[in-house]
């Protein structure tokens, strides 16, 4: 039996998530096989709809790598994102999707190791949850 290889869509803010991902790549750290990185200029760019669409079109889990609060280059981006993620989770609850399938993580530019750790943990977590039943 082949093990389930969950698909993760990771939105990465260009101020934090993207550099962290690049660092992880340079360090040749282990990354999930089934991963799609989506760079955004600011986590505030991520529409609620993007989060849902990712799940709708095949992701088993969605993560957002954003800057620490109070650290947003555009001052409010990650705060607005937080509200949207909360709203998306409400919608997911109505559909009957587990809240773990969507999560924000705060990283800094140099969080290469943390970046991959988070993703690998997500893979384990999603393996336990099983495939997204709504994709």
């Amino acid at each position: 039996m082949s093990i389930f290889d969950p698909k993760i869509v990771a939105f990465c803010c260009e101020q934090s998530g993207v550099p962290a991902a690049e660092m992880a790549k340079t360090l040749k750290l282990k990354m999930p096989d089934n991963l799609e990185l989506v760079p955004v200029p600011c986590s505030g760019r991520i529409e609620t709809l993007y989060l849902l669409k990712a799940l709708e079109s095949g992701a088993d889990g969605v993560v957002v790598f954003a800057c620490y609060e109070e650290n947003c280059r555009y001052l409010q981006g990650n705060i607005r994102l937080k509200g949207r993620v909360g709203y998306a989770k409400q919608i997911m609850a109505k559909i009957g999707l587990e809240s773990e399938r969507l999560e924000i993580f705060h990283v800094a530019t140099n969080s290469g190791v943390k970046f991959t750790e988070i993703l690998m943990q997500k893979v384990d977590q999603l393996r336990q949850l099983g495939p997204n039943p709504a994709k």
Partner: protein
Amino acid sequence: MIKAEQKPFEEILEYLAPYGKILLSGCGACVTVCNAGGEKDGALLASALRMARRKMGKPIEILESTPARQCEPEFAQELTDTIGKVEAVLSVSCGVGVQTLARYFPATQIFPGVNTTFMGETVAHGVWEERCQACGNCILEKTAGICPIARCAKQLLNGPCGGSSKGKCEIKRETDCAWQLIYDRSKSLGQLHRLSAIIPAKQWGVESRDSGPRSIVREDLKV
């Protein structure tokens, strides 16, 4: 403007159960502004419905469209071709827009996707409050611009009830007592004397919709 909020999700799922292909029609005006049925919120609902139905093993195809205002016949008619392709319509405009579609598309089921809640004002971003009940005979000139019909729980016309306490309403403690607001504003405008005039009881059966739906006809405008 008109304020609305999305209907409970299960309710929508339930009445859409028999259909495999629908149109989700939003409205580009009032319900866009209150984030209930504009293009963005329509798309969110459509995505959620598609996922929920896939999870149930009964996928649904959803077309999306957002006319600028669903309550004008011309905008409604723009949907003719699309509606011809679907089994039913889920309209996330207010109840008016749903009925406009119902009038123009007699052969198609039109379901409401939102609960039309009130006519209200944006008090802060993301916060809307009821302001007018369309009573048919506005008395705001007597009440310092604050409506006791829409904002007093008991619709009192001549001062607060005995339950008004510390400026709050006894029915809902977190709500301001409308009559406190009326008094305070009259006072600061130096218009307290206006409040001593008795406001006569409203002719609910004549002006309001108690005697059935109202209509406005302007003969001069008719074509």
